């Protein structure tokens, strides 16, 4: 499947291969100080069974079934591959008539989160506008696109429901070049009177929340906007419809070829190293690995200790190279390209920096401008 996508104003047509890895050997959850743990060593867990709750109320669930192993601050569930699962008695046939209080109750009881904050707190706020961004904000990521494509009807229903129950304007943002989603939504959008469709160019970083709000929704204060991505919206849908947490997520893997990417559907907590070895079948021991946005140049030293969470959206496995910065030639490209209009050459980085990494990407001298040791 090919998807047209714009990066740094260059239009690219990327061949995307979709893969599934839904039976990992085990899943892991990191325990942090203050977390309440609901399982013991050797317990047998079903899929969707509560494992722990953080101090902020975010809950983590088993995404595979099997026995628990507790060691060194990690809760490991060894997958018996039976897919034994809890079925909620609160499942609904239809979400159309669900009341506002019920939406809040279901999201609250499941402790689902978006950007490490409880979704229920966002819903309870005084937002005047809901924006669902069905694009991936960071470059060369296609997780949101595909989750939306797989659940168009369900997600549109959820936007419509939230708009009605919370009495707010609702916009769905789609990538202009994503023909599949744009055509699918345009075909049914008339059935969802409260959902406004906005088709924009998916040009990084002009699809980030801050810039989208500034560019297209000037009449709203930034604080009055409730931003959600496809995953957060899907979590809300699943909580309302099935009374259960979502156990699967997509990650994008890129091997250094700008024209080819893999989008892998897998389980929360699955080991990323295992996924790469089993599905893509490459040896990454002599590669440079970057997480989420390669332009930030945040390297991952050990892929084998990395697990799938909402914070791991894409993995870039590049040929190993020694990046040696040379002396700045003061060409000013970093200043010209900065989407928030700051000077990345300043000794102290401006607080409005969104850390998009574009300055790093255009720098001819390979200087890491957003690192502290500039």
């Amino acid at each position, binding site marked *: 499947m090919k998807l047209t996508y714009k990066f740094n104003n260059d239009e690219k047509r990327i061949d995307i291969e979709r893969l599934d890895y839904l039976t990992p050997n085990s899943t892991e959850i990191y325990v942090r100080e203050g977390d309440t743990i609901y399982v013991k060593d050797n317990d047998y867990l079903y899929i969707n069974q509560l494992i722990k709750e953080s101090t902020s109320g975010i809950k983590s669930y088993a995404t595979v079934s099997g026995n628990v192993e507790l060691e060194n601050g990690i809760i490991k569930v060894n997958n018996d591959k039976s897919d034994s699962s809890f079925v909620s008695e609160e499942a609904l046939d239809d979400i159309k008539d669900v009341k506002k209080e019920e939406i809040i109750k279901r999201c609250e009881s499941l402790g689902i989160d978006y950007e490490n904050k409880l979704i229920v707190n966002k819903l309870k706020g005084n937002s005047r506008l809901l924006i669902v961004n069905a694009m991936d904000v960071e470059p060369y990521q296609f997780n949101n696109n595909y989750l939306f494509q797989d659940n168009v009807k369900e997600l549109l229903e959820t936007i419509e429901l939230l708009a009605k129950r919370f009495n707010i304007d609702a916009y769905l943002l789609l990538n202009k070049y994503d023909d599949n989603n744009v055509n699918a939504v345009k075909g049914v959008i008339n059935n969802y009177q409260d959902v406004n469709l906005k088709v924009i160019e998916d040009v990084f970083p002009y699809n980030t929340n801050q810039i989208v709000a500034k560019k297209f929704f000037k009449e709203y204060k930034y604080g009055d906007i409730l931003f959600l991505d496809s995953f957060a919206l899907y979590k809300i849908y699943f909580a309302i419809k099935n009374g259960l947490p979502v156990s699967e997520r997509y990650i994008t893997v890129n091997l250094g070829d700008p024209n080819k990417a893999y989008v892998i559907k897998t389980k929360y907590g699955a080991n990323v190293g295992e996924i790469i070895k089993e599905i893509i079948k490459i040896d990454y021991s002599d590669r440079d690995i970057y997480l989420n946005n390669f332009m930030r140049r945040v390297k991952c030293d050990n892929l084998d200790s990395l697990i799938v969470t909402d914070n791991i959206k894409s993995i870039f496995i590049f*040929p190993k190279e020694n990046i040696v910065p040379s002396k700045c030639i003061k060409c000013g490209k970093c200043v010209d390209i900065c989407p928030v209009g700051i000077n990345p050459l300043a000794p102290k980085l401006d607080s409005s920096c969104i850390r998009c990494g574009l300055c790093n990407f255009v720098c001819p001298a390979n200087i890491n401008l957003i690192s502290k040791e500039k």
Partner: protein
Amino acid sequence: MKKGFFSKNKVLGINMLYVLSVLPLIIYGFYKNGILVYQNGFMSLFLSLQYLVIPIIIIALSYVFEIYYYMGIKKEEGTSSVVNSIIPYINVLCYLVCAPNDYLWLTIPLIVILDILIKFIDKYVTINQIALFKCLLVGIMTLIGNLEYANLYEASLTTQVTEPSLLFLGNGIGAIGTTSTLCALIGYIILLFNSYYKKEIPIVAFIGYAIVSVIIYFVGGLSFNDILVNTFNSGIIFALVYVASLSTATPVVRSGRIIYSLVLGVLGAVMVNILKLNIGVYIVILVLGLLTPLFDKFKLSLGE
């Protein structure tokens, strides 16, 4: 080795384009000050070759200097700083602003001394090395009483060529690489292919220069021909294309670059047309280069 995602080494590519852009000037300088002078019997063929040999020596010396500095003094392991150095390009430009006279060989040590000096002070101040070199050179030549831009053939002529179309080609008296506006424009076209070249500086500065020149024409009593002659003889196009747009000594913020260029064009026109100081353009570039940090502050006020 397979090319990595970040293995772009764009600076080397940038420097190659810079060097390519000065080739027409070097070749024309060799033709005008070497071949033509030899053909008119004022110089041996061997001596005329100095106008090709000196830039090659300067490039070689620049790399020796950079290797010694980065690998000898700074103890860097890789060669990237040497390969990516912009110093050879700057030093060739320094050669091109020299007068084609007997003292030409003495400029080589001056270029090297300036390289050493700049290495120590460029952390603290933004200095346009070419403009500084030119000002020092003119100062020294004035002190020793030898500020003469005519080559041996030109010095023998009783009248100067002042027809503007010939001056555009580069037939006027001037420094080795600065007389030919045509070659400078060819260089500018080459530099347009370099996306890291600050291409708006020569355009905006020339607009500023042209506006002030027109005002002077109407109110200052200069004829149109005088203004054209002043423009071509001062090597203003060379100065704007190569010296004023030197990336290391110009503002990084676009609005700052525009203001810098306008001020440069206006003051340059005043220097050349009113004060009759051809070196004035270089003095303005040197001073404005020192003020680069101030120009970079124009960003906020212009609401970029």
